[in-house]
C-alpha cells in the first residue's frame, strides 16, 4: 500500500473509530444498566478491558512483525513493529491508569502487587524497554534486532497475564468473556464490552496506519538525505 493509501485508510479508520468512541461513551453512560454489586464504577470496565485487549493485540502484532523481520530483514516489518509498540504503549498506559481508578473504589487501594497487575506492569516496562533497547546501540541495525527480540519476549507475557487469575490466588476478577464455558456477562453488558473492543481495535489500526505512513516518509527522507550527501 502506498503512503497516500495508508493515510486515506488511516483517516477513514480513525474517523470511524472516533464515531464509535462517541457511541461507546453514550452506551456506557446512558444505555447499559448499572451493575448491582459494584455500582457506577463498574462502567470503567467498558474501556479498561478493550484497552487491555488492544495492548495485547499490539504486542502480538509487533512480535509477529519482529519475528518476520529477524527472518527476512525487511525494513517495513521493523517499521510496522515500531508503530505497533508505540500504540501498545498508549493502550497499556490506559490499562494501568483506568484499572487503579476502579481498584480504589472496588478494593480500597489504587495498587496491589498481585499477579495480573504486576505482569501488566511488566508488559508496560517491556514496551518502554523496546524503545530504550532500540536507541541504546550505536549501530541502528543492531538496535532494531535487539528491539525485535524484546517485542517477542513481550508477547510471551500475554498468556501469563491472561491466565494469572486462574493459576494464582488473585484479587483481580476472573475473565468474564474469554472462558471455556462461555461469557458470563448479561447481554447488554456483553454487547457494550464487545463494541468497546471493536472501537478500540479500529482506532488502533487507524492510528497505526497513520504512524506507519510517518515512518515510511521518514525512511524516504533519510534515503534522499543520504543520496544527496
Amino acid at each position, binding site marked *: 500500500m502506498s503512503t497516500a493509501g495508508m493515510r486515506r485508510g488511516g483517516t477513514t479508520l*480513525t474517523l470511524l473509530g472516533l464515531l464509535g*468512541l462517541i457511541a461507546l461513551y453514550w452506551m456506557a453512560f446512558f444505555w447499559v444498566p448499572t451493575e448491582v454489586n459494584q455500582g457506577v464504577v463498574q462502567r*470503567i470496565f467498558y474501556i479498561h478491558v478493550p484497552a487491555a485487549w488492544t495492548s495485547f493485540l499490539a504486542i502480538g502484532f509487533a512480535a509477529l512483525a519482529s519475528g518476520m523481520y529477524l527472518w527476512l530483514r525487511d525494513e517495513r516489518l521493523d517499521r510496522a513493529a515500531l508503530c505497533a509498540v508505540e500504540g501498545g504503549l498508549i493502550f497499556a498506559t490506559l490499562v494501568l491508569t483506568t484499572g487503579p481508578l476502579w481498584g480504589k473504589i472496588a478494593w480500597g487501594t489504587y495498587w496491589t502487587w498481585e499477579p495480573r497487575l504486576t505482569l501488566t506492569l511488566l508488559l508496560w516496562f517491556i514496551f518502554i524497554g523496546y524503545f530504550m533497547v532500540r536507541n541504546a546501540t550505536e549501530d541502528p541495525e543492531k538496535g532494531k534486532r535487539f528491539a525485535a527480540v524484546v517485542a517477542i519476549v513481550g508477547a510471551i507475557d500475554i498468556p501469563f497475564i491472561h491466565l494469572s487469575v486462574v493459576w494464582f490466588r488473585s484479587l483481580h476478577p476472573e475473565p468474564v468473556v474469554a472462558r471455556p464455558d462461555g461469557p458470563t456477562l448479561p447481554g447488554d453488558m456483553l454487547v457494550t464490552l464487545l463494541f468497546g473492543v471493536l472501537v478500540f481495535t479500529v482506532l488502533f489500526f487507524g*492510528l497505526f496506519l497513520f504512524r506507519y505512513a*510517518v515512518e515510511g516518509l521518514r525512511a524516504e*527522507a533519510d534515503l*534522499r538525505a543520504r543520496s544527496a550527501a
Partner: protein
Amino acid sequence: MKKSMTYALALTVLTIAVMAAAAVAQESAGMPQAGRLAEQNLRPYWHVFAAYTLVILLIGGWAVSIARRLRAIEERLLD
C-alpha cells in the same frame, strides 16, 4: 412591600429551621450528613469520569503527536 418582606423572612427562618432539624435527626439516627453522603455517592463518578477522560487524552494525544510528526516529515521532504 413590608408584608411580603415579613413573609420572605419567615419563610427563610422556617427553611433554616427545617434543615437544622433534619441535620439533627440524621445525626441522632447515626446517618451521615447530607454533604458527606453526597461526597460518598459522587466519588465513584469522579473515578469513572477521570477514566473516560484519560481515554480521550491519551488517544487524542497520540493522534496529535502523529499528525505533528507527519507535518514535520512532509516539510522536510519539501525542502
